[in-house]
Structure formats: structure tokens, C-alpha cells
């Protein structure tokens, strides 16, 4: 119920720029949205972009949180992200995060050429592929010096190559 009221309030606020021109800035819009919603939208976006089934929601939420933290420090990025979030949330009749996967993918494809997508893509990619949980799934082993490198841990253990 609370969520629904929030949504309704956001709809009104999101519609305002078109009524009052440029008076309402991205920062106002940002203030109108609750942080948990922003993180959820971005985490779903991260999962749709880099869908590793065996990776938990934690990694995607962490990537979203890192992006949001970064956004706070950069005005142009801030505007792009606010704009993109609005675009995604307006795309579906209800809560975008609970829309069908198919719908979400279609919405993402629609904004693929936006500044929001470009910025979010780079940041989310970096976070996801720096996450140790993701590394375990894809087979990257990370820092090795504390284990003495790979000299005795498989640097030459390949076993499927043709003999000659």
C-alpha cells in the first residue's frame, strides 16, 4: 500500500517537468524517489545485462549500490541516471522491477542508446566482473601472491591439448 502511494506520488512528480518546463531538475526528481527503489531498479538492470544464473542477488544489489554511490559525486552522471531510471519506471504500468523479464529486456533495448545506459553499463560491468562471487562462477581466481602464485597451483596443468 505504501509502495503504491509512493508510486503514485512519483508518477505525479515525474510528470511535472513536462508541465513546468525545466524548472524541476533531475535532483528534485531524485529526491522524490526512495533509495531502495533506485537500487532495486539498477540491480534488476545489472542482472538483465549480465545474467549469471548462479550469482546471487547480493552481487547485483552491490553493483547497484556502488553505482548510486558514484552517481552522488558526478552531476552529469547524476542527471543521466535519474533520467534513465525515470524512463525505465515509466515503461511499465506498475513496478518495473516486478515486470516480466521479457518486458524488462524490451525496455532495456529501447534505452540502449541513452547516456544512462552507457554510464550504467560501464559501472555495472566493472562491479559485476570485480565481484569474487562472480569470479567463482566464471572461473577467475583473483589475487594469487598471498598463495605463492600459481607455480605450484596449476599454471601448467592443462590436460586436453593434442599430444602432437
Amino acid at each position, binding site marked *: 500500500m505504501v509502495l503504491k502511494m509512493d508510486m503514485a506520488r512519483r508518477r505525479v512528480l515525474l510528470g511535472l517537468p513536462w508541465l513546468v518546463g525545466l524548472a524541476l531538475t533531475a535532483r528534485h526528481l531524485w529526491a522524490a524517489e526512495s533509495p531502495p527503489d533506485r537500487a532495486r531498479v539498477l540491480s534488476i538492470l545489472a542482472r538483465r545485462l*549480465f*545474467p549469471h544464473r548462479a550469482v546471487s542477488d547480493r552481487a547485483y544489489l552491490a553493483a547497484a549500490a556502488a553505482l548510486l554511490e558514484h552517481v552522488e559525486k558526478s552531476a552529469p552522471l547524476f542527471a543521466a541516471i535519474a533520467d534513465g531510471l525515470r524512463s525505465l519506471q515509466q515503461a511499465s504500468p506498475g513496478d518495473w522491477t516486478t515486470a516480466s523479464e521479457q518486458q524488462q529486456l524490451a525496455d*532495456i533495448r529501447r534505452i540502449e542508446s541513452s547516456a544512462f545506459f552507457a554510464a550504467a553499463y560501464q559501472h555495472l560491468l566493472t562491479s559485476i566482473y570485480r565481484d569474487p562471487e562472480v569470479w567463482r562462477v566464471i572461473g*577467475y581466481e583473483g589475487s594469487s601472491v598471498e598463495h605463492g602464485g*600459481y607455480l605450484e*597451483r596449476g599454471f601448467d*596443468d*592443462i590436460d586436453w*591439448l593434442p599430444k*602432437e
Partner: protein
Amino acid sequence: MSKTFSLSDSSVVVVIGSGAGGGTLGHELARQGIDVVCLEAGPRQEASEFVNDAEEMTARLTWLDRRIGVGDTDANFPVFTCKTVGGTTVHWTATALRMQDHELRPQTTYGKIENTSLIDWPLSPEELAPYYDRAEDKMGVTGTHGIPRLPESNHYKVLKAGAKRVGYQHFNTGNMAINSEDRDGRPACRQIGFCMSGCVIAAKWSTLYTEIPRAEDTGHFELRPQAMAVRINHDADGRVAGVVYIDKDGVRREQKARAVCVAGNAIETARLLLNSKSDLFPSGLANRSDQVGRHYMRHVFAGVAAIMPGPVNFHRGTQQAGHVQDEADHRPERGFSGGYQIEILPFPPTSLARLVSPGGWGDDFAAIMEKYNHFASLLIQGEDFPQADNRILLHGEERDAYGLPLPVVRYRDHANNVALRRHGVAAARKIFQSLGAERIFTYPLKSATHNMGACRMSERPQDGVCDRWGRAHDIRNLYISDGSAFSSSSSANPTLTIVALAIRQAEHIAKEISAGRM
């Protein structure tokens, strides 16, 4: 042990840069009792502070001050260089190849090639050879001077098996400036897999923990980190007399000098000379022939990565210890002049994600990344010919944090590059296909790590900036001491040649000083 020199001490040689050129030259001069002040724009970070984290180390080591690319290069990040004590020798892969004899005589070997400014080096392969010997010994290059090669990693074994299948004959784990056994007070490589993030155990040669501390031990060398050279001053006779730099506190200072050696990695070397305009040198120092910044070369690069039928784990082990040299010679029947190296080059997940399918996402992209440990990857690195208009320029308006005009890197591919790259990519694909690769990806590498020319050596002053010793044609006590001085790029990774030339230049400068000519 490190000595401190006063700013007004005009008996010192000022070396700008502490990488392969500057770090080596500084040590070689100090060793001979010549006082040196070395200005390095970046901070001093010890190997023990390095971490096995490619992203973090890239942020800590890279020259991130803005540069503008125009043409066939990345517009926002045209070159990849380092801003740290040790320069690119902290980040380098440690591949230490000699230029081949014919590559030192490119004009003679290749003949006239349209739209190039090819010249032969003003020194012969025979003159350079003994300095290559000394450089290899100094750096402990595997496969030279009886130093064993590094062991064969998984990634190299893939290259070897494929190379055999396609009929190549010259392949090995490379000539690497990485200890294969304990040597020179540094340990043997532990196959850590983070060469390019700075070698934590110092098995890889870097001036950071070899040349620089040894130079300091002589009592004739002072390193000034976080000292950005912004201008070289000269006296009324047109001889250089001092270097203006901005220190770590933002204070502008001038160090007097008896001679100045510039080793800032091509872009900064050319930029510094261009920024040192005066009444006597209105278009910049050593630029009377309008040659400073011109003939800028990089290598012709292309990357080919493949998902192999089984696990490779290419992140394990020495990153570039695997070379094929069968395509390095000059065989014009292939449809291009010059040759190329084939070298293994692995990537951490973030880099692989950006390279194999730029902008990619969704199920297919994730499936590619889930094959991370099945990847193998090869670098094609070919000779790049000089072109007068491939050059470093100063931006008309935009300034950096030091108040200097931003450098513009203008680079266009020559038709020869396109043909060479096509051939190289096909060769790498064949290697992978011969082993049943599941998918093969080709990717461009648009930010150059090997920057050469721009202040090149030439017999005649109208063809280049400096002579066979790296001494500026126009100014007797100004030297070019980095890859900027290269007359041609060859297909070899540049560092070994930079070090060999620095050793040779130090001998020359010492002779000039002892003869009372400087």
C-alpha cells in the same frame, strides 16, 4: 644514501622521467660519478605496496591526465602510459626482444613506400649489438646469456600446440626480463599472473627497484618524485640551462643543469619540447626543422581471443611468456612490408568483458563470460611505419592542471597496417582453429602502449630531432632518452632497445663531460 642537490647546482645532469630510458640513464650516469637529478611526474610506490588487482593498479599506475586522440585512435584515451616512479617498467609485460637487423634499416630493406617517412637508423646493428648484450644482462632476459627460459604455462602450451599444427617453427616462452631463477638480488618468478599490475615480488625487471635504488646508492643521484617538468630553459647561447618543474606542493621551481635528457615517453617528451618556446626557439626547443612531434609511431596492434575446448586458466602465470616469431620477418609476398610478433596476452574479467564483445550484454554475453577460464588470447604486434603527419601537437586552447596545453595525438593507420593486421588476425585465428576453438573474437586495441618516434634520430637534421647518440641536432646539451628517439618502430616491444640506447647514451655523455665539452 640518496644525495640532495641544490636547485642552483648547474653541474648536474637533469633526467626527466624514471622509466626504461630515464631510470636506466640516470643509473648509468651516476655509476660513472656524474651527478644526476631525476624528475619524475608520478609518485614513488614500492613493489611491496602493489596488490594483485588489475583495476586498482591500473588506477594507481596510469597516466590519467587528459590527452586528446584524433584519427585512428581512442579520442579520450589515445595512449596508455604510466605516471609513477619506474614509469612503464612497472606496468610492462617484460617482453625484451631485440630489433632485427633489417628493421634497423627499414628504408633500405623495404624501399620506397608511399605516404611514409621511412629512414634508416643512423647507427648500425653492429654498433647497437653490444649494448643489447649489456641491456639483456642488466635486465636478466631469459633465453639470453645462458639464462634459462621461463617454464611453459597453460596459455603458452595452447600457443605452442596451435603453432605446431599450423607449421610454425619458432616459438618459445619468450625473451623475458623476468627472473627464471634467483638473479641479481631478485627472486624467480612465482607465476603470479599480475605482471602488468606491478610485480609484487620484483621478479620482473623494473627501474623502480633496480636502477633507481642503485643510482641512489652511488651518492650521485637524486630522485624527485611528483615533479612535473613543464619547461626547459636555455642560456643566451642556445644551450639548455635548467628545467622548470612543478613540485608535489604545486610550487614552481627551476633546477639548473649542465645537460638535460628527456625521457617522458613520446607524448610528454614531444610536448615538453613544444612547450619550451622562446625567442631563440619560437616553435619549441630542438624544433628548427619542424620535426618535434612528427613520425610518431605505435605498433600495429590487434587482439584475437578464443574460447578453447577445455580450460586454459590464462590468468595463471607470467602474462606474456609465449611468442611465435615465424611472422616477424619481411616477406612482401604476404601483401605488406615488415613483420609482426605473435604474443600471448591474457586479461582479467573486466578487460575481457570490454574487449571480446564491446557493449555486449544479455544471455549470450554472460555465456561468453562464463567461459572465462577456457579463454586463450593472442596479440598481433606489427611494425608501424613513420608518417610525418602522425604526430604529437599542442591543443590550441585546452589546458591541463599544470596550466600546459593538452597534448593531441594525431594518428592514422597506413594501408600497410591494414594489410598486416588482416594477415595477423587470420594467422591467430588459424592457430586457435587448429585446436578446435569454439568461438573466436577479434578486437582492436586503440590505446597505444608502445609510443615511438616523435623526436627521432636521423642522420640529417631535416629528417629528425636528434643524432645517433640521441643528442638534439639543434642543441648540444639536450638529449632524447626514450622511445621518442626511435627512427623506426620494428615489430619488437620497445623497452629493451630503450635500455640499450640509454646505456650507450650514458657512455657518450660521460665522454663528453670528461673531454670538457659539456
